[in-house]
């Protein structure tokens, strides 16, 4: 499993009304892994996913899924792709069994056994209307449908947004099961960084339409450190080695991309902690905003 299920090269997408530009020279999603896509609101996460889904068209560049061009081969690609968008698109007045009837004929690999298993697991009544479900149940149903045709790639846009912690954890557990049993590749966008801590193998940070940071999650968290120390230790030289620095009159906190260099200056007078995904995201995002000022 060393191929890329998604490859984006030289991508540019402009929105004239808002002035927003998505600029991705290169973005890849590895096969067989969970790739988390994180960014603040308006960073371009949904735009990127829509470009992969052929719901939007790039102004420049190319999007490839399973090695094939996303627009020209959209029909073939979508047979092996499960999609859960921020908006599910399911008719609210339709019953769950009717929605299954709508979707099933499009997928040669549809598996009713899997579908019924997920309905049971999520305690979903097929006779209920979609609009009568809670937000969490709606997402669970969307996941059940998406997984019931044995997709090779699961593409999700903010799948855990508006879910309570219990439901969110269950959804993440199911994703973990699917990856282990079926070898499904997962690409999902979120602004809930703790989800990425729990499940992601690779993470991509998006900010202002640009990729800030990407890599294997464990490598990124191992290669960075949160540095904390007394205020007087924060010299100009130290500050240049940190990003996202927060300083009060008593102390400071910052993210070090080269902890060795910081340790060479501060030694054991500072504390060095392994960052979470949120620490990485905040550090780099604040650095970008600081440079913009």
């Amino acid at each position, binding site marked *: 499993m060393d191929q890329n299920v998604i490859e984006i090269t030289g991508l540019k997408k402009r929105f004239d009304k808002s002035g927003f530009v998505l600029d991705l020279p290169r973005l890849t999603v590895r096969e067989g892994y969970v790739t988390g896509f994180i960014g603040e609101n308006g960073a371009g996460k949904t735009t990127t996913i829509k470009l992969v889904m052929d719901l939007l068209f790039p102004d420049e560049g190319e999007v490839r899924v399973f090695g094939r061009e996303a627009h020209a081969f959209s029909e073939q690609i979508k047979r092996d792709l499960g999609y859960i968008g921020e908006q599910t698109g399911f008719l609210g007045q339709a*019953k769950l069994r009717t929605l299954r009837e709508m979707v099933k004929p499009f997928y040669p690999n549809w598996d009713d056994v899997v579908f019924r298993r997920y309905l049971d697991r999520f305690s979903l009544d097929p006779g209920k209307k979609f609009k009568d479900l809670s937000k969490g149940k709606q997402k669970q149903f969307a996941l059940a449908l998406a997984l019931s045709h044995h997709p090779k790639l699961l593409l999700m846009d903010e799948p855990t947004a508006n879910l309570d912690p219990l439901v969110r954890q269950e959804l993440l557990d199911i994703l973990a099961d699917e990856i282990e049993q079926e070898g499904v590749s997962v690409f999902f966008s979120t602004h809930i960084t703790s989800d990425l801590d729990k499940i992601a193998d690779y993470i991509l940070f998006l900010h202002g339409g640009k990729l800030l940071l990407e890599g294997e999650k464990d490598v990124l968290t191992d290669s960075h450190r949160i540095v904390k120390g007394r205020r007087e230790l924060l010299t100009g030289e130290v500050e240049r080695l940190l990003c996202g620095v927060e300083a009060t009159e008593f102390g400071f906190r910052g993210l070090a991309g080269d902890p060795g260099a910081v340790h060479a200056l501060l030694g054991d007078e500072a504390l060095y902690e392994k960052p979470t995904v949120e620490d990485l995201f905040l550090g780099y995002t604040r650095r970008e905003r600081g440079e913009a000022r």
Partner: protein
Amino acid sequence: MKEMLSVIRMDLLKLRSVAGAMFPLLIIVFFLSATLSVSAAVFLYVIVVYFFVYTPAAYDEQSKGDYLTGSLPVRREKLVAAKYLYDLAVVAGACLAALAAGGIGAALKLGRGGSVTGMLPVLILIGCAFTAFVQPLILGFGVTRARYWILAAYAFGVAAATVLGMNVGGTRAQMPSALPGWLAPLLILFGAALLAVSYPIARRLYARRQFTD
């Protein structure tokens, strides 16, 4: 072909899901049409075409149905073809409903006489014209953005039905039992020509449509 039939099936299932709200209204209109006059059957036809083409699309857009459709493994051109086939089925169904209403009225000797059968080519033309105008707008711009143009098309259809009912044969609410022989196929051909022009326009618009909402 399989994907097109799956899209039509999906649209019929959507229609069934939203029909609960429309069904009582349609029943009332049907019986009013049967008891009033033949021209009322023409009104029934226009209402059925409008509701069955526009209303499911409106409900669907309310639920952001484009995201579901966009995620399904079906090419955009096949989706457009399926929409037109569905609309033709609606036109056929509306004709049957108008015929049934007119037939019941005639059998019960209600209304003011006349025959819907004779006006079938005109009804087909109205249905084809409505589809030809409305479907590119729905596919190209979405129901919400195109709603005023669609309402205008509906108003025109109602006006056309009114003019037909009042002025054909020079007698109010009377219709001839049949159109002149040369006119009927011409009207149907004209309807087909409108669809033949509309279809590639709809395909082009939908092929270029991007879902930014």
